[in-house]
């Protein structure tokens, strides 16, 4: 049913409907409202789960690892510094092939301390083996949790998932969201049936010591599972669409891209503002389109290359930066996807630490791209440098 509510609350409702058996998290701005709501649900009997309160994020994800290995559907949520405190367990969860789902209310990394939004946190852990989903609005932030558990738990995948949405910009925004009923959620997402689990009667091990004769194959297998996740996303994204009318089978979204001369590539909530800017530029006669990346891991290399094959130039907008490289993570991926092509790709780092992104910024970036100017931090306050 459509209701108007805060993004964090909509996400918490979705998580409740996914029936996690174990929730363990530590509050951190701007994610706190999610775990507060889940703690309330458990305390009030609205969610039949074990809510494990812990002393920090390292313990939160560790508790989820134990719970998941023992065969429970496990969930956590965090952001920024909290995610970094979890980092070693983030790698372990993927290496152990545990289908944990974690919400990331994206936030900048310190120092300097910033509670505001960018995507440096989750992007910095892109090599850990988790799937990465990025939402444009709160409807998607909500729906992607159902898809995340379904894909994560598929026997061909068995990988954990980050469901990422912009901190504050989505987490603290009230807007209409269609939240599934429990019956609908149960139709799409049945109970977790793990292929392997810790059982005292039939002992096995997760995350064992791997000598050089074995380790390489573990990383290979995890990468193969990432590749198979594409098929699972297509399959279950389509199933979700057939049931509820919102199809998430595509890992990318194309907006007015068919006949575009200039393609913008971006992720997350800024894509809404970009679409409005594109409509205005189109009215002014500029053929601009958007390629939005919803699934960053596995990266949709073929889909991106195909969707961009016809354009004259590409502006990639990143709310993160790989310091010491040519730019942001998305630009690096897009260049890789287009390797061998002669289409110029320009990267723009923007919106870091909560700097607002306006339609006029998008238009200015398109103008810069047309002039071949790019691979830069956009919107720098020159007086501060």
């Amino acid at each position: 049913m459509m209701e108007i509510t805060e993004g964090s609350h909509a996400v918490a409702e979705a998580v409740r409907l996914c029936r996690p058996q174990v929730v363990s998290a530590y509050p951190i701005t701007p994610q706190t409202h999610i775990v507060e709501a889940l703690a309330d649900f458990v305390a009030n009997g609205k969610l039949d789960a074990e809510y494990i309160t812990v002393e920090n994020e390292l313990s939160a994800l560790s508790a989820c690892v134990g719970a998941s290995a023992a065969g429970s559907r496990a969930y956590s949520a965090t952001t920024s510094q909290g995610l970094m405190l979890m980092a070693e367990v983030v790698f372990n969860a993927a290496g152990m092939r545990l289908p944990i789902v974690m919400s990331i209310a994206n936030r900048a990394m310190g120092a300097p301390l910033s509670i505001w939004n960018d995507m440096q946190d989750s992007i910095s852990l892109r090599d850990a083996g988790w799937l990465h989903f990025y939402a444009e609005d709160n409807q998607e932030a909500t729906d992607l949790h159902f898809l995340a558990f379904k894909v994560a738990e598929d026997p061909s995948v068995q990988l954990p998932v980050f469901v990422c949405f912009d901190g504050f910009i989505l987490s603290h925004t009230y807007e209409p969201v269609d939240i599934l009923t429990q019956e609908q959620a149960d139709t799409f997402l049945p109970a977790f049936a793990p292929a392997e689990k810790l059982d005292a009667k039939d002992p096995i091990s997760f995350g064992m010591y791997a000598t050089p004769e074995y380790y390489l194959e573990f990383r290979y297998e995890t990468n193969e599972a990432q590749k198979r996740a594409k098929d699972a996303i297509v399959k279950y994204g389509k199933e979700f669409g057939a049931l509820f009318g919102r199809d998430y089978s595509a890992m990318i979204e194309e907006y007015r891209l068919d006949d575009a001369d200039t393609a913008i590539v971006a992720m997350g909530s800024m894509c809404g503002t970009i679409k409005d800017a594109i409509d205005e530029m189109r009215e002014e006669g500029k053929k601009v389109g958007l390629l939005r990346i919803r699934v960053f891991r596995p990266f949709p290399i073929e889909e991106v290359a195909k969707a961009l094959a016809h354009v004259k130039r590409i502006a990639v907008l990143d709310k993160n930066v790989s310091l010491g490289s040519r730019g942001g993570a998305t630009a690096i991926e897009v260049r890789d996807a287009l390797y061998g092509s002669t289409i110029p790709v320009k990267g723009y780092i923007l919106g870091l630490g909560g700097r607002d992104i306006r339609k006029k910024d998008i238009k200015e970036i398109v103008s810069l791209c047309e002039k071949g100017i790019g691979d830069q931090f956009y919107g720098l306050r020159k007086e501060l440098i």
Partner: protein
Amino acid sequence: MKELRIHGRGGQGSVTAAELIAVAAFEGGAYAQAFPAFGVERRGAPVQAFVRFDNKKIRKRSQVYEPDYIIVQDSTLIKDVNVFLGVKPGGIVIVNTEKKPDFKVPEGVRLITIDATSIALKALGLPITNTTLMGAFAAASGEIQFGALENALKHRFPGELAVKNIAAAKTAYDSVKGAA
């Protein structure tokens, strides 16, 4: 699309006001979006919150720079913050003050002053003016119906507190309607 910017100080309930106005607009059949200016929340510090109204899905995520409506919860902000910045011609500015205005709003903008602090003190026993100003906003803008505002307040506040806040909002609503 219409846009509202609320200026207040931390603790005056500007974010709550934005949320409840969006809830009331949604009940009236509009698409609405409400969000705070993501500052460092401290009691007394200048804060902003925003609402957008449209008859179709709102995709834009930037802050509000050219509002159709402005609510100023605390007139002492006017000397510190350019609260009227960017207001559209034909726009409406609602300022909580008990004094005659010693400030000017831009040309072509309608100014409504209301002594929301006195109304709130009388109805709630507290100088928390957000719900009072929501009543004034409903009357001045027509973006939300008073009935929908009443429902939003009932849903947010328990029993007696809801009744008191509705009374405060109604006093302001009637006062602005009467003056129009």
